[in-house]
């Protein structure tokens, strides 16, 4: 077997195992005997654990097959798209250039190619493809369009697989403990009330929870493995469904139902954009595949090659209004008549914005961010897995994956959306008091960071942050879950305090997460590797990219300062959470007395995740994770782009970013330390009373507590009008049509009355039998207006007349 086949097999097994788990578990619910045992949970833990092992094997296999070239190169050479290989298409991969050459990165294409050739001769590096793609099978042919199940495996796919399965395994194990009170036939839901005010009693749904979790893992892994954008869309919807099911898991609670609907509907709004993007791609590209695929021995270029060719640049026509499609070797694609195949530039922008629209919904970016905090109605393990670590990151993942199709204008939009999101969410997090909601807003804010990074061409920085964030955010969510479990489902921080002594493991692992997200650690060196908690490295990379971007495009000053300031805010609210919860004196003594540390089945996952949250980014830019990611970077990102028409944007190259890295690092650290110190003063010492500050700025506080009034605004803008339109339309039959019909009936009555006069005068007038006939006709006229059937008939005639008149008015000339 070739490397590609081995990888495909391993990842396919890792992908399908959770599905098998789901199938077994969901039916296990009907085997009464197993319904209230741990069997379902163990089953799903085994499945996802095996998935993790297979993913890890795949990662190692990939590394061995590529001789760990990804790690050998100290700087990515930025042109490996040419190394994207179709399995059967042969291999002419290029060796990876050593760091030194790239330091003098040159945007001149020809010169760079020369470098390549020279290197290949000199170094005789192993010639191994590092990206594998291919087709499972074809689903359908629609004319020239093919729908198929493809796979696309590069280092990003592998890292995502390993990350998702690892975190999912930890969370599954945690959930075995957390959800254990569902293991009963008479579960009492204290937060759901019947109409008479009593609590809802229902059978536990332990197996169902794990079945949904397994289905979610399957969908998420399918999304990551997908080799074409349509397949991504299918799994995209599947994770949406899983999210809906899991948010609404406590379906007896009205809030949970509302939150599930809200999440689903807001995601559909984003998906509408996604569909528009798909349509443009379908019509103009004629393919959904990411990369070159083979058909009857011919290579069909994929979307990425069509836009970016072989050198990562977008090639415009002379007038700049259209883009020329190219194939993987950089030659322009031809129409049948020999002219270049092109796409209007605006449509390319529409395609990019459309697909990004889907990402906005899924990753809870401004303006569709409001569903995510409400999604915290789901059980905490769900919040940890779905709504912080993986599913919401899928939007960022897709933005990264689809990067080659995004034009600089789209990237700028992405950057600003991310920028707005990260600031708005961070400010709300400052005033939130529900422990899970603080984390939810912090998630939105961090997702904003990732989007911002990708938008300002910090591709690696964004995805780097995605991975590190997944670890420390899932850690913190699980810690909060542990706290909630320990406090008997109390989520309000003002009732906690002083939990450090009662729950030491939880508190300390949480502290690791808090330090990581704040980017606070002081870098020091162990065994020659720079060591700092993961968040420091990734946030640093983003801020550095922002600084470089601002230097090159002075007008976009916000793209640096907003994330910088927000880094301080982040540190502030995260430490506020920690101080509030774990330090100080207990605020609710009675609850405090009953608090207990969680069982070992819940704390062990915490320790594992804490280890990764602290150390997964070890080494920073020269560490394993960063290098693995940069290996997948799309072509052309490393060199940057100079003043690209038509928006005249300059994207920073790696060289630019590197130059300002240490400077940016210092700024970020200052911001974070400031934030932490303020939090310490306010919440851990009696120096300043935070309540006083709240009173001073009560207007601002209220504004933030109300989440910038987004919900109110959407309610007024969409929900209310929708309700009005719906009620209007449902009543349309009764009110509007009936009144029209009655109008027609009135006319009919007039005619009939005339008819009656006619009858009376001419016919009955001659015969003196007026009495009973008049009576019956009169009665029939009186009830004329109530009968529906005749109104129906009247409406046939009226419709024909109205339609004909409309034709007259609208099309006077044929």
């Amino acid at each position, binding site marked *: 077997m070739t490397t590609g086949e081995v990888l495909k097999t391993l990842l396919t097994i890792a992908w399908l195992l959770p599905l098998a788990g789901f199938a077994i578990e969901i039916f296990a619910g009907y085997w009464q005997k197993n319904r209230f045992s741990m069997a379902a949970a163990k089953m799903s833990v085994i499945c996802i654990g095996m998935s993790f092992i297979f993913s890890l094997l795949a990662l190692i296999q990939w590394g061995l097959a590529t001789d760990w070239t990804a790690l050998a190169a100290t700087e990515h050479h930025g042109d490996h798209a040419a190394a994207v290989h179709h399995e059967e298409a042969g291999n002419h991969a290029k060796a990876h250039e050593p760091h030194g050459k790239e330091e003098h990165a040159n945007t001149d294409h020809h010169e760079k190619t020369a470098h390549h050739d020279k290197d290949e001769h000199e170094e005789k590096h192993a010639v191994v493809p590092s990206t594998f793609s291919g087709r499972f099978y074809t689903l359908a042919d629609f004319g020239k369009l093919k729908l198929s199940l493809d796979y696309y495996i590069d280092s990003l796919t592998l890292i995502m697989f390993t990350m998702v399965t690892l975190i999912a395994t930890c969370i599954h194990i945690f959930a075995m403990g957390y959800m254990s009170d569902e293991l009963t036939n008479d579960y009492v839901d204290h937060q759901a009330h019947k109409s008479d005010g009593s609590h809802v009693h229902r059978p536990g749904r332990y197996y169902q929870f794990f079945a949904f979790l397994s289905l979610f893992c399957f969908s998420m892994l399918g999304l990551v493995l997908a080799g074409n954008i349509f397949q991504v869309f299918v799994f995209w919807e599947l994770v949406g469904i899983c999210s809906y099911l899991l948010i609404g898991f406590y379906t007896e609670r009205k809030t949970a139902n509302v939150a599930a609907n809200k999440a689903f509907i807001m995601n559909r709004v984003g998906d509408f954009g996604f569909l528009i993007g798909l349509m443009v791609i379908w019509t103009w590209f004629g393919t959904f595949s990411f990369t070159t695929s083979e058909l009857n021995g011919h290579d069909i270029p994929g979307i990425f090659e069509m836009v970016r060719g072989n050198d990562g640049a977008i090639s415009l026509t002379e007038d700049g209004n259209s883009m020329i499609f190219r194939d993987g070797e950089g030659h322009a694609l031809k129409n049948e008549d020999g002219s270049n195949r092109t796409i209007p530039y605006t449509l390319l922008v529409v395609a990019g914005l459309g697909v990004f629209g889907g990402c906005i919904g899924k990753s809870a970016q401004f303006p569709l961010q409001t569903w995510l905090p409400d999604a915290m109605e789901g059980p905490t393990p769900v919040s940890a897995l779905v709504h912080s670590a993986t599913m919401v990151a899928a939007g960022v993942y897709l933005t990264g994956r689809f990067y080659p199709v995004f034009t600089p204008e789209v990237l700028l939009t992405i950057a600003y959306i991310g920028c707005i999101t990260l600031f708005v969410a961070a400010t709300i997090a400052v005033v939130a008091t529900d422990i899970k909601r603080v984390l939810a807003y912090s998630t939105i804010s961090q997702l904003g960071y990732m989007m911002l990074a990708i938008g300002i061409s910090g591709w690696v920085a964004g995805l780097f942050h995605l991975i590190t964030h997944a670890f420390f955010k899932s850690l913190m969510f699980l810690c909060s879950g542990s706290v909630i479990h320990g406090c008997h489902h109390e989520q309000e921080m003002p009732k906690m305090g002083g939990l450090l002594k009662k729950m030491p493991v939880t508190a300390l692992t949480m502290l690791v997460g808090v330090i990581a997200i704040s980017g606070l650690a002081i870098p020091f060196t162990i065994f020659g590797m720079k060591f700092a908690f993961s968040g420091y490295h990734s946030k640093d990379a983003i801020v550095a990219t922002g600084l470089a971007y601002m230097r090159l495009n002075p007008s976009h000053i916000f793209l640096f300062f907003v994330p910088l300031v927000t880094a301080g805010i982040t540190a502030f609210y995260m430490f506020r959470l920690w101080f509030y919860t774990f330090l100080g004196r207990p605020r609710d003594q009675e609850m405090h007395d009953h608090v207990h540390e969680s069982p070992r089945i819940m704390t062990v996952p915490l320790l594992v995740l804490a280890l990764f949250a602290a150390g997964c980014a070890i080494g920073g830019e020269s560490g394993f994770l960063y290098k693995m990611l940069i290996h997948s970077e799309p072509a052309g990102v490393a060199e940057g782009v100079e003043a690209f028409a038509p928006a005249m944007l300059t994207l920073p190259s790696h060289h630019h970013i590197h130059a300002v890295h240490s400077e940016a690092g210092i700024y970020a650290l200052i911001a974070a330390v400031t934030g932490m110190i303020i939090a310490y003063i306010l919440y851990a010492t009696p120096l300043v009373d935070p309540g006083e500050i709240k009173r001073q700025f009560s207007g601002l506080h209220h504004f933030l507590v109300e989440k910038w009034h987004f919900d109110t605004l959407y309610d007024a803008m969409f929900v209310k009008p929708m309700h009005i339109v719906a009620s209007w339309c449902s009543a349309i039959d009764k009110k509007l049509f009936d009144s029209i019909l009655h109008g027609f009936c009135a006319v009919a009555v007039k005619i009939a009355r005339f008819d009656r006069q006619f009858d009376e005068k001419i016919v009955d007038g001659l015969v003196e039998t007026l009495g009973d006939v008049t009576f019956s006709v009169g009665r029939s006229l009186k009830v004329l207006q109530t009968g*529906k059937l005749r109104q129906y008939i009247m409406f*046939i005639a009226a419709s024909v007349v109205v339609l004909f008149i409309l034709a007259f008015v609208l099309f006077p000339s*044929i």
Partner: protein
Amino acid sequence: MNFESLLNKLIEDTLQLSLPLFSAELVLCGTIVLMLLVRLFNADKFLPAYIVSIIGVGISFAIACCDYSKLSTPGFATGEIFTGLLIFDQFTAFFRIFLLLFLTLVICLTELSGIPDREDGPDFYTLLIGSTIGMLLMISANHLLILFIGIEMTSVPSYVLVGFMKGRKKSSEGSLKYVVYGAGTAGVMLYGISLLVGLLGTANFSEMGANLHQILASQSVEGVALAISNPVVGTLLLGIMMVLVGIAFKLSLFPFHFWCPDAFEGASAEVAGYLSVASKGAAFALLVRFCLSIVGDYSSVDQFSNIYLAIGIGLGVIAVVSATYGNLTAYTQNNIKRLFAYSTIAHAGYMLMAVAALMVIMSADSGADINKAELASRCIQGLLYYLTVYMFMNLGAFAIVAFIRNQIFSEDLEDYKGIGKAFPVLGICMGICIFSLVGLPPFGGFFGKFAIFASLYEASTIHWSMFVVLCLAGLNTVFSLYYYVRILKTMFLEERPEGAPDFQSEPNLWNSGYVVIISAPALLLGIFPGRLSSTVQDIASVLFN
């Protein structure tokens, strides 16, 4: 040629060419006669009516399949039969298989759900098969007379089917409204036919387009656009519109939909399922044939393209209004049959969009750089795909309603609480049908919608209004989500109220098996759309050769 040779030729033509191709319908007629004879001789104790009918329909189905495979043999001439009254081609053959398969499924359903009882069996199946024969005429119509006869033959037995539940007030009321409304629209349509026949001088579909062009050309003055106030043009347009009214009644499109909710609520769920799919499929076949016939030779419509554009936009507007009206009105319904009635109105709207796109594409300038035949066949392809999926998902939904009715004696949504847990197979299949109706991937309904929306998008390059239609259609799929999911929510997430009457029986293996078989295609056609889509592509392309 003297009279005798003419007569001989006619007999030869009828016996050797036309009747063999008409044998599927003839077998159905024979089945009806046989069924009545069986009862006449009191043999129905040993040979129940459903067995006779299912054998007859099965034979007819086999013949239809043979005819279809015959079409692909080289040298087999397709075309007009019965001196041009009917037409036999791939399109006819496809719909014939579609309708006969559907009829078989419905007969199985009625037997499983116990409607009708043994006493009424022959009557019921006579009506069912009779109306299907009418539909088979509709799909092969090539003449305005057959158009009228087909619609009437379909409608008249359906009126009785709706009122078949004797002794139920709602049932007789529903059929009463249906018959009067149907008679009214039939009158309007006939009047339209009389106008068209008179002005065009022909009733044959293959000549109507050319004659229409000729008349319009004779009315037009050089350099002046044809005005609709010109009496000939206006009357022609009125005639076309009135014929479309008759078809719109069968499709239950917006201003002609009033019968639909009442008739569906009055009828039994089995009959409602039958009417919602079969008559809609046949009416769409007829609509496509009629529209193409008035277009005539599509490569030379330039001079009069506006008339087709106007029809296309008109259909588009009706489609959007139907979809919106159906979806929004379904929101507040409590009777589940009534809810599905509004849902069929909405789905007819979606499918009509394909025809609207077809007409707009047909109206394009021949100078424009598009391949009309390919684009147009894409529209038909989407329509056929949607109809096929719709057959399974809608029949599945109605079958489940029928089986649940047998358990709880109710068709109110409120009484559906907790049904999904008591009857998990029915519940899951309902879920499949409903997600397919919404059009979520990976269910079959998604591909149907996708194909139709895609052809709307193509049409929007010719006229912008189709883009508006597309957007509103997309918006409508969002609207529809709510009330569909509400059914599932009631079935699965709400507890069965205490004190609710017991179920009539345990879940029945036959019933479960039937709904699984019916709803599985709704899912499978979404996962493996390849085979069907290539088949319908071939069929659609035949219309434009």
